């Protein structure tokens, strides 16, 4: 490893309501592959976005090759020699490979306005030769498979003679052999003295390709270790090790209860692979895993929001066909999505309308009009039962706090008498006080005989609430853990097991 290329010190970044980065530091040396690890929300992306000019830091210093710099925008970062290959590829699908690589640099020396197509095609050919790639620069990027699109992005970074290369989950969409090719290219970069920041959740790969690992947690810097000196277990421990206050949980024994939902061999593209599990009455079944593990995709498939490639769903022992959310709702399934603003509530409508949204059929008069006396009564009862803090049921939902909006969505499903409820990140964006109320609500719901699937990225929450925890990784179920056995470490191990 050579000189220090990048030194980030005391980096602070706050968004409204969220302290994203707290006195973070990071150091990158020439010729090293430095892995950056942490749970979802640890701050890895935010830190890198500051380095690449997408965000501005609130305070702290960035020292690039010995000089303090202020990276104002993506172009400034590029000019310094810092390139990033995002997880969601940043290519323009209608343009060719060469046009994408040289976007912003396509003009002839003489006239600034004319595009020199031959020049960019020739240069691209040279780049590919150096990288041992066999692609036609004139191919439209949309026609390439994802792994080749990724190669185009890497070629772009190479063309900038970048000295710092950030790769965000580079292997997520690649097969084993493609990963081998990628690693060859990474080693080539190392030999040239390029410093690589490698963000990934794949433990074995990190051990294989990286020289050092920096771990972040909750927006803070935790530690930096040499990859060959530590075990995967130790890294996981650094990622999750926080003191947890776990109240003594008395979980009712649900083993004897009937199975209300059973799914067998669900398949959907790359995100849901051969998923089978069952859900019992009175149970809270937790779904843990990293971002992209496929949990939301499983939930949406069961709810009919997305079409399954194959698989069977049984509700209370009876096989059902679910082709759309209305089918799912007919069978008593309700889904509270991750992004309640987008998928859960209609913000412009009032509390009353949102609560009865799925159940209008029950409130219609003889000629089809809505019986407002009935809807008001039911809505008010629900507001009282769930303790929704709102001046009245006529209040527009967008004026409620996040926690109360969430309660409104719950109220919607309860009004519909849905007894199988899928909660996707139920307490995301909700403060601590409201969280406890939601937890109590969930426990009450299952006491009353409902069954809940709870998807969450917060390990403390999952362990606290679930009777059993299903852990997913890259579309597959990698482990099912009972409440007694569940620890953060164990869940993380399953969550990163390929």
């Amino acid at each position, binding site marked *: 490893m050579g000189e220090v290329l990048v030194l980030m010190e005391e980096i602070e970044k706050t968004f409204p309501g969220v302290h994203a980065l707290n006195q973070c530091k990071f150091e990158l040396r020439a010729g090293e592959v430095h892995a950056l690890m942490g749970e979802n929300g640890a701050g890895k992306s935010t830190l890198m976005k500051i380095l690449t000019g*997408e965000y501005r830091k609130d305070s702290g210093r960035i020292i690039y090759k010995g000089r303090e710099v202020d990276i104002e*925008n*993506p*172009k400034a970062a*590029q000019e310094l020699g810092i390139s990033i290959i*995002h997880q969601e590829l*940043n*290519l*323009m*699908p*209608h*343009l060719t490979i060469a*046009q994408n690589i040289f*976007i*912003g640099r*396509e*003009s002839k020396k003489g006239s*600034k*306005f*004319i*595009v020199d*197509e031959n020049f960019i095609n020739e240069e691209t050919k040279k780049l590919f030769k150096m990288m041992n790639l066999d692609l036609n620069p*004139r191919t439209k990027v*949309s026609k390439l498979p994802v792994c080749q699109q990724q190669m185009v992005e890497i070629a772009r970074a190479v063309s900038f003679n970048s000295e710092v290369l950030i790769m965000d989950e580079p292997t997520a969409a690649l097969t084993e052999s493609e990963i081998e090719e990628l690693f060859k290219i990474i080693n080539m970069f190392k030999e040239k003295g390029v410093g690589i920041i490698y963000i990934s959740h794949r433990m074995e790969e990190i051990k294989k390709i990286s020289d050092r690992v920096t771990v972040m947690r909750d927006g803070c810097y935790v530690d930096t270790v040499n990859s060959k000196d530590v075990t995967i277990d130790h890294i996981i421990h650094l990622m999750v090790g926080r003191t947890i206050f776990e109240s003594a949980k008395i979980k009712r024994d649900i083993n004897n209860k009937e199975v209300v939902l059973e799914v067998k061999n669900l398949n959907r593209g790359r995100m849901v692979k051969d998923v089978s599990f069952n859900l019992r009455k009175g149970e809270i079944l937790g779904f843990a895993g990293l971002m992209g593990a496929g949990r939301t995709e499983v939930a949406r498939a069961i709810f009919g929001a997305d079409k399954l490639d194959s698989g069977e769903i049984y509700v209370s022992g009876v096989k059902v066909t679910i082709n759309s959310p209305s089918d799912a709702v007919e069978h008593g399934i309700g889904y509270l999505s991750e992004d309640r603003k987008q998928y859960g509530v209609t913000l412009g409508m009032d509390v009353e309308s949102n609560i009865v949204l799925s159940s209008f059929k029950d409130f219609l008069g003889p000629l089809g009009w809505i019986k407002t006396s009935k809807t008001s009564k039911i809505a008010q009862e629900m507001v009282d039962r769930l303790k929704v803090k709102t001046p009245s049921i006529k209040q527009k939902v967008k004026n409620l706090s996040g926690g109360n909006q969430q309660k409104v969505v719950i109220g919607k499903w309860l009004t519909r008498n849905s007894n199988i409820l899928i909660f996707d990140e139920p307490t995301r964006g909700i403060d601590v006080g409201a969280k406890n109320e939601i937890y109590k609500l969930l426990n009450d719901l299952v006491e009353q005989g409902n069954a809940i699937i709870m998807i969450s990225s917060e390990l403390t929450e999952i362990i606290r609430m679930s009777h059993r925890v299903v852990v997913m990784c890259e579309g597959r179920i990698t482990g099912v853990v009972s409440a007694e056995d569940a620890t953060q470490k164990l869940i993380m191990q399953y969550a990163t097991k390929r």
Partner: protein
Amino acid sequence: MENRVFKYFTTKKKSLVSPDARQKLLAFASLVVIFIIFSIASPNFFKFDNVVGILLATAVNGVLAVGVTFVIITGGIDLSIGTVMTFSAVSAGIFITNMHMPIGVGIIGALVAGGLCGLVNGLLIAKAKIPPFIATLGMMLVTKGLSLVLSGTKPIYFNDTPAFSNIAMGNGLIPNAVIIFLVAAAIGGFILSKTVLGRYTVALGSNEEAARLSGINVIKWKIIVYVLTGIFAGLAGVLMASRLNSAQPALGAGYEMDAISAVVIGGTSLSGGEGSMIGTVIGAFVITTLTNGLRILSVPQEWQTVVTGVIVIGAVYMDIVRRRNANKV
């Protein structure tokens, strides 16, 4: 005589050639088919005068369509081009007739007027982040009103300057307007395929966020695109004023629909990222050819718009199907 007409088609194709040649050939082929059908249906169709009439009728709309092609490729839309065209015509009238300035100044004034309207559109859309549909709808109403205000709600005639009408109508067998249109289309095509502005236009429409992260000043270039469209609308205004020998402040609204239809029929997608000038030119000719042919066949005028509407839907649908099949491979 037929040879001279076809010569213009072939020379245009050479200078505007782009990779998706097959799609252009298909669009061109359908235009030829329409020509053949009408020629068979009526002996009056394929007469020199009539074909010249088609070319002339296409000129004004064609220039508008060439301009708005850029905006549509960025994934935006410009509903104001019709009224901006009129506004530019009125501006020319004010400079030339009311203020007695030389014709050249009037023409430049019209182009500048169009460009300024485009600038306002660009600022509203790129900086204030108002959706293009709304921003340009608002500008359409504003420029419509301004045209009436500036002209005192009366047409401005160019009787003092007979040379003005030569711009569109002069010169031998083929009116200048047609030549100006084809040259404008050639310039538009050149800009689109060979210049940085053209490249960024496509980039913005293809993936604006990727373009931004690649270091392109998205705001600046979006504004430039709308200004360019405005300048073309200004040119269309000059042509129209010259044809009618007057600036008619009440005209203009509705022209944008024909222009956008021409672009869409030509194969440019409203979702942005791809398109070509040849397509737009062919699309413009398809519309006027249809209208003309139907009129020669004495089809009532009401039915002409019905037919145009059906063609627009059909062309877009065929394009969607073609794209879907291409992606399946």
